[in-house]
Structure formats: structure tokens, C-alpha cells
């Protein structure tokens, strides 16, 4: 289940350098740099509009930066074809967003099984694996319900299960607790970080909540499209 990390320890798993991105006249990123090592959990913080989501979208190959590059395991995302990038997102990346973004017509179990089905796993096996992930996220009881019939906290845990079911190497989480109260938010964070650590997945966690960021190994602050990493002297 876990990814071997030995070959990845020296160079970062995911490396974004000098990213720039404008939306019309609006600079969303203005020289952002972020390196993520295998298995580490990095919090990306910063005020609203600072460019956190844009950075995450560039890292995941969803948005193409105007300048700078993103390398994943040594390969530059912008030189891949669209098909290669979508394949990568399906096999190596997992996603959790602020509002679960589960498919409303499917049951929670089917939602979690979906990424496996899309990768060609047969229904029976996909649903068995999905059920195990729902159990790990402590939401087995909602397996047969549709997303509209579960609470926000349960929905987010289903979304985390869906993000991890393919045992991705990187999980991108954009404000995964943003719509939850603090107790539910903490539960989602505990389960997400436990699951990521046990499978060896790295997590890029966008949040503006310090208590959520405190679940990460380190934090990077985005200000006006620029990243800033504050390293304290070891004490």
C-alpha cells in the first residue's frame, strides 16, 4: 500500500519553481516556488486572494502557469500531453475540495469506488476497496446514502476516502475543512493526515486556518502571489 520513498528522498517529488499566472490584468501568481517531498504534509497559508488555489491548481496540472515550471518526479508537467496529464491526475493524485464535490446521483460507496472504476478496476473489487476506505474514515454507515443525505462532515470524510482510494502519491486538499465547524474539521484533518501518513502520500493542504495548518509538517505562506517559507533556526 505504501510508496517506497528511498529513491525520492534527495529530490523533491513535486517541484514548482518561479510560477507566474495572470488572469487578465490580475496577477494570481507572481513567482511562486514550492517543493514537496514524498510523504510530507505541507500547509499552504495566506489571505484570501493571495493565490493559494491557483498555486495548487498549477501544482496539480489543472492550470498551466504563464511562466515557471512544475516537475513531478522529474517530469515537467507542461511538456506532457493533456491525456498524459489527466492520466497522471487519475493515478498519482487525489483531490479534496471545500465542498466534497461528490457526484450527487451516486451513493457514497459508488463515489469512493468511482476513481477505481475509471482506472478500469472491476465493480466488485472497486466497491470492496471503497468500503474499506469508508471504514477507515469512520463513515461506513453512509455507504448506501447519496451525498445529499449526509452531513457536511460525513461528506468530507467520504471525499477524503475517494481521494485516497487509489493510494495516490500526492493529495491536493483545498480548504478541506472550510465548510465545517471546528470539531468536524479537526476530525477530518486527523483522519486525512493519518491516512496520508499510513499510505506514504504527500499532502498539499491549502488553508487559512492555523489550527488546520498545525496538522502539517511545515507551512508555506503565499502573499500577493509569492511564496514565503519561514525557517526558524533549530533550537
Amino acid at each position, binding site marked *: 500500500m505504501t510508496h517506497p520513498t528511498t529513491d525520492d528522498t534527495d529530490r523533491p517529488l513535486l517541484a514548482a519553481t518561479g510560477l507566474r499566472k495572470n488572469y487578465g490584468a490580475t496577477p494570481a501568481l507572481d513567482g511562486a516556488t514550492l517543493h514537496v517531498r514524498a510523504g510530507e504534509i505541507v500547509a499552504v497559508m495566506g489571505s484570501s486572494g493571495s493565490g493559494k488555489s491557483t498555486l495548487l491548481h498549477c501544482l496539480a496540472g489543472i492550470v498551466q502557469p504563464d511562466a515557471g515550471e512544475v516537475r513531478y518526479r522529474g517530469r515537467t508537467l507542461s511538456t506532457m500531453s493533456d491525456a498524459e496529464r489527466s492520466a497522471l491526475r487519475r493515478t498519482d493524485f487525489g483531490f479534496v475540495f471545500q465542498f466534497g464535490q461528490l457526484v450527487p446521483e451516486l451513493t457514497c460507496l459508488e463515489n469512493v469506488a468511482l476513481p477505481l472504476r475509471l482506472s478500469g478496476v472491476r465493480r466488485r473489487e472497486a466497491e470492496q476497496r471503497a468500503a474499506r476506505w469508508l471504514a477507515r474514515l469512520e463513515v461506513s454507515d453512509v455507504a448506501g446514502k447519496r451525498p445529499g443525505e449526509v452531513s457536511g462532515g460525513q461528506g468530507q470524510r467520504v471525499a477524503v476516502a475517494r481521494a485516497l482510494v487509489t493510494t495516490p502519491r500526492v493529495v491536493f486538499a483545498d480548504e478541506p475543512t472550510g465548510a465545517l465547524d471546528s470539531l468536524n474539521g479537526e476530525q477530518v484533518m486527523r483522519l486525512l493526515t493519518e491516512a496520508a501518513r499510513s499510505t506514504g502520500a504527500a499532502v498539499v493542504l491549502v488553508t487559512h486556518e*492555523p489550527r488546520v495548518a498545525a496538522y502539517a509538517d511545515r507551512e508555506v*505562506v503565499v502573499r500577493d502571489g509569492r511564496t514565503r517559507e*519561514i525557517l526558524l533556526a533549530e533550537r
Partner: protein
Amino acid sequence: MPCIVAPMSIAQTFLGLLEGSPRHGYELKRLYDERFGQSRPLHYGQVYATLARLLKGGLIQVDGVEPGAGPERKRYAITAAGVTDVERWLNQPEKPDTYLQNTLYTKVVLSLLTGRNAADILDIQRAEHLRVMRELTRRKTTGDLADQLICDFALFHLEADLRWLEQTAARLDQLAATLRTPASRPDGNVP
């Protein structure tokens, strides 16, 4: 870790612990350390000084003495006055700390006045706050419910500090501008 029971409330905490049943001094110390002392256990000197004060005030009485000498032989029981006292303490709200004398604010102003980079000072503090928050979070996720509640108390307070750091960072230019104009009188004596 901060001590969660302020020194002045050790007495009332002892009274509360004695309400259940009479206890020896060393039992009180053990219970206190287990439940409230965190990383700062009480010294025996503190324990017996507190008990002596409570005895003198009539809030506890000696319930039994085992043969031998020394304070550790005595068992203490709460008195009716002691119950009244602990009841009053529990129902009295704590004074909200307003932290108006804020070292960080002073550091920010001084660094602006001396032409230093105030944003760096805020960032360094922010990183240190988050480092402590990560430690508390680790402890919380491996601990029991008591650990969780105690760490959460600290975490929510540190988070409040961080919000202040963030807002101040966003207003540094504004603050620098007001510092460039001569200090105005905050007491309303403006012509």
C-alpha cells in the same frame, strides 16, 4: 506547556478534590499533578503551605492522624466553609485577559521606528507560533480526551494570536504612516 491552574487557584482546586472524600497531602498532590499539573507538578512545599493556609482559614480540618510525626501523616477533610468557598470560586467568572500590554505590538512599533523590517518580525513570530501549534496538535492526536481539551485551549489562544499577526502584517504600511506623523494624543485632548 503552560500550567493550566493558576497558582492562586491551587487552594480551591484542593478544596474541590477534597469534596469527594478526605485525603492525605500526597494524594492531593498526585491527583492534582495527574489531572491539572501537566508538565508542572507541584512541589511538596507548595502542597503543605497551601494546606496550612486552608487549615488556618477554617476551610479544611484534620480528619485523622496516623501514628508518627510530620504533615504527611495527616488526612484532611473539607469544612462547610470550604464547600462555600469552592462553590463561590467555581461560579465566579475568570477575568478575561485582555493583553493590552502586548510585547509583540511594542516590537512591531519599535522595528518600524528604527527602520527595521517589521514584516520579518511578524513572520518569525508566526512561524514560532505554528511550530508550537504543531507540537500541541501532535500531542493532541496521540493523547486522551484530557490532553485534547487542554491542548485545544492552548491552540485556540495561539490561533487568536496568529490572526492578530496576520491582520497587523496587512496593516504595516498604515501603521508606519501613522508613526511618521508626530504622536497624537489618544486621550482626546486634540484641539
